[in-house]
């Protein structure tokens, strides 16, 4: 990458990022100056409700959404100043795990072909990368022989694990997990969250974990960023944000979690006769 890249620089730094959709009168500013950093080996949880801009932020970081102002720095290098070749290389350094495990795998390609494409996007020959494929499959606790199978033979949780393996197989510096458990059942969600926790320690992953579920974000994150209408309402250490929210919106959000300490929906009806 560029010479300015140093090991001390944060893996991701977003400065005053703005994303606008449309132009003229119809222009809608979805992100209004978002700043955040993720240090190596840390997980930043990004929470917010629908329309808060959390998915827009994820797509802007991986380059799927155009940025209208501000800058994105990956490993100390400004993405907007990269040549197209550098940017192509950078794209592989930041991998996204999509939400829906059913549309994230091509139904006509075997698991081996899918993983081979992550390892070598041009040739994508599963036989040439057999060892790597079985290594990544073992990381997600699947047998090596599943490489011959097609996605429809797997459950939602298994597919999501395969999607995680595909992101890991690229060897990225940063992983962006966009609502990766929201399409899953509770028991499968636990399986994925456990896998993520294990990989965080084993592989020293750096991750941005996006979710609308405050319980889930609380479980996996070191730091939390709360987004509201495209602005960062609060950012900080996970325990301090959940324990002592400074912003009234954060307070409201935390008190809305059913089963949480601040949750109250009014008195129960007097006992049924």
């Amino acid at each position, binding site marked *: 990458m560029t010479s300015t890249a140093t090991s001390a620089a944060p893996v991701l730094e977003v400065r005053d990022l703005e994303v606008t959709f449309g132009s003229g009168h119809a222009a809608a500013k979805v992100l209004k100056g978002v700043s955040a950093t993720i240090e190596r080996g840390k997980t930043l949880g990004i929470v917010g*409700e629908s329309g808060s801009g959390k998915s827009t932020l994820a797509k802007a970081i991986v*380059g*799927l959404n155009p940025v209208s102002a501000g800058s994105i720095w990956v490993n100390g290098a400004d993405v907007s100043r990269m040549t197209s070749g550098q940017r192509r290389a950078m*794209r*592989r350094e*930041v991998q*996204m795990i*999509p*939400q*829906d495990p059913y*549309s*994230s*795998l*091509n139904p*006509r*390609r075997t698991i081996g*072909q899918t993983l081979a*494409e992550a390892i070598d*996007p*041009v040739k*994508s020959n599963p036989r040439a990368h057999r060892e790597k494929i079985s290594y990544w499959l073992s990381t997600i606790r*699947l*047998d090596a022989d*599943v490489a011959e199978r097609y996605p429809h*033979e*797997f*459950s939602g949780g*298994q597919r999501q694990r395969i999607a995680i393996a*595909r992101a890991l197989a690229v060897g990225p510096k940063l992983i962006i997990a966009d609502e990766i458990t929201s399409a899953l*059942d*509770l*028991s499968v*969600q*636990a*399986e994925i*969250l*456990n896998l993520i*926790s294990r990989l965080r320690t084993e592989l020293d992953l750096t991750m941005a974990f996006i979710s*609308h579920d*405050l*319980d*889930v974000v*609380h*479980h996996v994150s070191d730091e939390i960023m709360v987004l509201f209408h495209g602005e960062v309402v609060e950012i900080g250490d996970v325990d301090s944000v959940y324990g002592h929210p400074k912003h009234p919106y954060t307070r*409201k*959000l*935390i008190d*809305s*979690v*059913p*089963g*949480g*300490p601040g*949750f109250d*929906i*009014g*008195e*129960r*009806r007097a006992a*049924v006769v």
Partner: protein
Amino acid sequence: MAEKTRTKRHFRWTTGLIIGIALMTVMILIGLLAPLFLTEAAEKLTANASQGPSSAHWLGTDDFGRDVLARSLVATRLTLVMTAATTVISVVGGVLIGTFIWLAPAKIRNAVLRVIDAAVAYPSLIFALLIAAILGQGAWSAVLAIAIASIPAFARLTANMAASISQRNYVSTARLLGVPGPRIITRHLLPNMAEPLLVLTATVFATTLIELSSLSFIGLGVQNPEYDFGRLLNEALVNIYSQPLQAVMPSIMITIAGLSAMLIGDGLAAATDPRGGRKFGSVKAASELPASMRADREALVEVDNLTVLTPNGVPLVKGVSLSIHAGEVVGLVGESGSGKSLTAMSIAGLLPEELTVRAHSMRLGELDLLKRNDPRTLATSIGLVYQDPGTSFNPALRIGSQLTEVSRIHLKQSGKTAFNRMVKALADIRITQPELRMKQHPHELSGGMLQRAMIASTLVTDPRLIIADEPTTALDVTVQADVLRQFRTINREMGTAMLFISHDIGVVQALCDKVIVMNGGKILERLTGAQLAAGDVKHPYTKALLAATPSIAERKTELVAVRAEDFTFDEISDDAPGPVQPETERLQP
């Protein structure tokens, strides 16, 4: 481990497809063999001009003494070759344009799409005539003309399919992985649209055949001495009164060739449609099943031994018994496939027709839910709130007319009365500017407001039971808290009984008086909301579910991964305790 059940879709052979393939095989054989054996009869000029049918010439001869039948058969080869060539050119061209524009920048893509739209707007035959007139007469200029004229329609269809596939996550992921554009097309786009493309190709083959024959018929296509079906018709037209049989054979050949292509296309479409061959089920009272629990005559809703079966006899709900008392909120909690929604929808009488519902008894008050009830009685006795307010409203109609539908149609209220009552109901659940909301369209309201409006609409008919199927799952947490508050208020102030279905333990424990935990179509445990909130649960499955739930209240080091299929205990019943651990015994709340 991957699941062992491989749901491999086997190919369905329909009669039409078999006939189509058989006819096409015959046509191809004729095309291959006829020119080898019949060319002389078909092309040699003889003195026997314009003869009628005879044993030597079954369909007679033409003006030059050539055998009409032989000419029709020999013409098959040229016709099929031309049609195939045209189809290949237009399909390849269309597919190339239709897929590659998805790699191009948005501006170029939109420009090309507009050009294609404009080209599609012209009838392709007229377009083909224009091109043929420019290229001049001849077989290959006709092929080229029709191929070019057919490209836009095919490109348009391909582009539409490619558009929907390129939205899928595996395509955007492939881009992020750095997969080159052409490989995205060959690996991800084309394989996933191969089936509809095949079907379309068969259709294009049939229409191309007609168009090529038309061009030859009007003299723009194949020229003497060559001949295809269209050219033969052209020659026959002159003698249509003296030698009508001359026109018959080419017409039959065109029909058969077109028909077989269409049958193959339809057959392929039917074979790839996974929804084929459904059977329909019924609702009946279970006959031999023993009464598994004492009839609870006090209860408002009583379901005794409910079983729901698929058309193949696979049980989805396996003998569920539950009762809901007046004023009670009962929660059904479980993961997908647990049968919670099926149980609730059987009570509402809203299961898909192909499922069979059996129960010892199922009633709401005096209403026997196993019988076919008057829709009016059902609609006013049970209020339903669905999961996604965004799709349960019709986007084209105003909110007001949708919310007052039950009042107007089933309660026979006048539009005005229904409107006023609805406005009051909306105001009751604190929706601002209720009159204005009634006149708005669904997209103008937020999801939370739509869901609250939906709840209000179930209340105006004063139902005895509200069934809410995951009513807050599609909502944001702050809105969810609002909607739950609404349910609580309604229950407290109006005493309406509710059956509340959710996968979210936190929601259920906060709202419900009683909670029923379901898994694999069976009830595993009955608790009170307070017991669940306190973690006072006995069944291992419920314990595991709680341990699998991350919580902001405490940070668990490791979540317990539950395997729902590991918990397959039989349903607990008073008559037959079965192989059940003591703690799974039914808990009378």
